[in-house]
């Protein structure tokens, strides 16, 4: 017995020694790569394609989770953008955006390649995927995303890593407000603009004496949209009865909709997006909300952020519902037409607003590189800041330098009563001019941070 004990003691010491030795070795090992990075600091940057013949973009989109439909359409748009940048296909918006320095021979003479990743609509997974793109695939730029929570998280990472992030579909005020970053850019509109655009129409259609009930997706986008829509509707004289937060991806909203019936409200505002909105809207209609008369008025439902994919999912429930959208394929300007045509030829159906914003973002980044004559992010950022262009589908557009938010016309749309086809689901009620949705750059606070990290 004592002998066994003795051997055990010796063993522990030996094992400890071994561990100490390996730990020491590891620490030495750890200092190596550090050294390397520090020395190489000067003018190098992550994602530098160097002398290779191609440059890589990272497309980080939700392929699973409540926003997977949008993610799939975003990926289609990106693949189309890469084709057009490399001079394949009919060129799409390359022919309509002005000014544009892209020649259809890649970017700065380098062929565009891409890697993809699944954000799973989770901040953690999105950041892990973005990190893989940066560390393993050496991408020059990351773009995509269909959730503001994810956009804010990835944007923060990109700022730390020094890689430009061209946000996809993100509608929260925070993305270019409180959480804005020097390396993050957003083409999509935001919740504040939605509120400003839709309020006059709501006043026209439903009057000034209304009582609104909000159901809100419980994260950054939902909160800011609720805040913006509440402010805008209260401005036209509406009263807010209640605001209720619902978890993202809830699926069953009946427990949230039942209380609406007895709340005395006559308008339900759904601050939901993607599959959540499809479910909550469908269930609200099934509960008979729209056939009700409250306070002597027809009960109405409003979906402030609307998209064709959602209208498709909601089917009949979406008919007559008002909302705003960044872009719609039925627009008649040259840029929209060119994009719809090449997207349709490639995939056989018209693009969604998510596809549109992602396509434009990829082209704008490529163009900024071309203008800067380099992929060095701080030079590219300077080109994007304050960039004014036209022909991308929303009229004259400005990338405001102070907060990296695009300013352009906003569409107010309504679910069509008699759709001609499976895709002809929304009609444009009004193209709200840019001047009406503009706001001062410092309204939401936040700091952009440094050019070089």
């Amino acid at each position: 017995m004592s002998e066994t004990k003795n051997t055990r003691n010796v063993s522990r010491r030996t094992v400890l020694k071994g561990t100490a030795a390996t730990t020491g070795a590891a620490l030495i090992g750890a200092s190596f790569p550090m050294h390397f990075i520090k020395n190489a600091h000067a003018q190098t940057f992550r994602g530098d394609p160097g002398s290779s013949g191609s440059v890589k973009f990272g497309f980080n989109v939700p392929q699973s989770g409540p926003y997977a439909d949008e993610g799939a359409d975003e990926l289609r748009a990106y693949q189309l953008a890469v084709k057009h940048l490399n001079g394949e296909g009919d060129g799409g918006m390359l022919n309509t955006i002005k000014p544009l320095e892209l020649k259809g021979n890649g970017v700065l003479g380098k062929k565009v390649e891409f890697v993809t990743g699944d954000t799973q609509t989770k901040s953690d997974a999105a950041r892990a995927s973005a990190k893989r793109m940066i560390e393993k695939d050496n991408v020059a730029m990351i773009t995509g995303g269909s959730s503001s929570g994810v956009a804010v998280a990835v944007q923060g990472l990109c700022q730390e890593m020094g890689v430009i992030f061209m946000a996809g579909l993100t509608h929260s005020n925070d993305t270019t407000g409180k959480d804005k970053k020097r390396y993050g850019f957003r083409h999509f509109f935001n919740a504040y603009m939605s509120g400003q655009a839709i309020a006059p129409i709501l006043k026209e259609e439903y009057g000034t004496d209304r009582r609104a009930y909000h159901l809100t997706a419980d994260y950054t986008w939902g909160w800011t949209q609720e805040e913006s829509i509440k402010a805008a509707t209260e401005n036209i004289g509406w009263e807010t009865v209640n605001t209720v937060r619902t978890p993202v991806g809830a699926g069953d909203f009946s427990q949230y909709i039942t209380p609406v019936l007895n709340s005395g409200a006559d308008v339900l505002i759904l601050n939901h997006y993607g599959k959540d909105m499809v479910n909550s809207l469908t269930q609200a209609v099934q509960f008979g909300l729209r056939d009700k008369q409250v306070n002597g008025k027809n009960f109405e439902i409003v979906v402030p952020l609307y998209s064709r994919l959602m209208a498709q999912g909601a089917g009949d429930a979406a008919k007559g519902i008002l909302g705003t959208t960044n872009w719609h394929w039925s627009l008649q300007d040259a840029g929209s037409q060119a994009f719809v045509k090449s997207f349709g030829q490639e995939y056989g159906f018209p693009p969604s607003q998510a596809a549109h914003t992602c396509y434009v973002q990829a082209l704008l980044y490529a163009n900024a590189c071309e203008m800067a004559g380099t992929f060095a992010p701080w030079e590219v950022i300077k080109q994007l800041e304050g960039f004014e262009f036209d022909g991308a589908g929303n009229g004259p557009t400005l990338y405001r330098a102070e907060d990296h938010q695009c300013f352009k016309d906003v569409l107010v749309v309504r679910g069509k009563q008699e759709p001609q086809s499976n895709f002809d689901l929304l009609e444009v009620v009004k193209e709200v001019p840019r001047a009406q949705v503009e706001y001062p750059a410092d309204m939401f606070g936040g700091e952009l941070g440094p050019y070089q990290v």
Partner: protein
Amino acid sequence: MSNTQIVSPKQDLIYMVVLSVVVLTMPIWLQPFGAAYPDLMQKFMIFGIFAIGYNVLFGLTGYLSFGHAAFLGVGSYTAVWSFKLLSMNVLPAMIFAVALSGLFALLIGYVSLRRSGIYFSILTLAFAQMSYNLAYSVLTPITNGETGLQLTQGDARVLDRMAGIEASAALPTPNLFGIEGIGYSGFYICAVLLIISFFIYLRIFRSAFGLKLRAIKSNQNRMGYTGYNTRPYLMTAFVISGMYAGLAGSLLAVTDPLAGAERMQWTASGEVVLITILGGAGTLIGPLLGAGIIKYFENIFSAFNDQVLQNAFSFLPDWLGHAVASVAGLFVGDGWHLTLGLVFMLIVIFLPGGVMEGITRLWRLVRSRTTSFDGNKKEQQPSTREV
């Protein structure tokens, strides 16, 4: 049988040396697998720590906890708050994370361990979901809800300021006295911690305490009849595994200073169960293998897209290449869960002891080939043999 077998100290030493060498040379030998980039290797280490900690509870006592992600989340939030309030040094962050998640485990364990079997699993699951929902919405001021807790320029960082470290224009990165927590250096920090954690875990396995935990697994009643009160041992195992999870959580924050609520969701708890079973519950290194396999699938398989597939099959004739690529496309990219599910099914059906059982069987096969007259009759053991 093998439970009671005394392992020679030399064998443990070999274990530690081999593990250290394998772990520290990862950047080299993972190269051909396309996995030799810091973020993924950090994940291997972190989830390795998480899984071996979980194995102390599940592997040894057989108590299936479905709520370990809660401790992971507590660890992450604590670490990020330590970065925000105290210092960007990772030491206080890790110490606080381990301590707080240990405390948290004590509370949850105190209630949950009053039941066993399925009731215990459900209780832990309920607590973890409660924690998740709290973090997701109710405790938004502390956790920043769905967006996740992030560092900002204006954080207090009291200790750093006292030491005269002023934040530059960029956000500071977590560091261990100057060794940064990101990139390759971050990997080495995680790797060293994994080796230390593994050593402690090895000692637990070999100790009398570990033996008692195994006794609980094999027959808790009988253990009670022999005069042992099992509750304190279970409690200790639960707290230890909670602390391991807390350490893993803090390392997640060290390598990427952001803490999101989804880290506490039941899917994250399920993941560690999956990792442990896939690798081999109750085996020494099974959980490490499981963590490696699952993280590899999640990060590498999910990134394959049509373009990559077309290139991979470009040696085939065009039509065949397209056909193969489109079939294979179902199993990679967004279909990686499908592949993982299939692999998991195959392993559970054919190798109930996980990957480790496969390795043991192979090893036995090789041995019986080389020395045909071996004590084969002695070696016949149930499939859930413990290594």
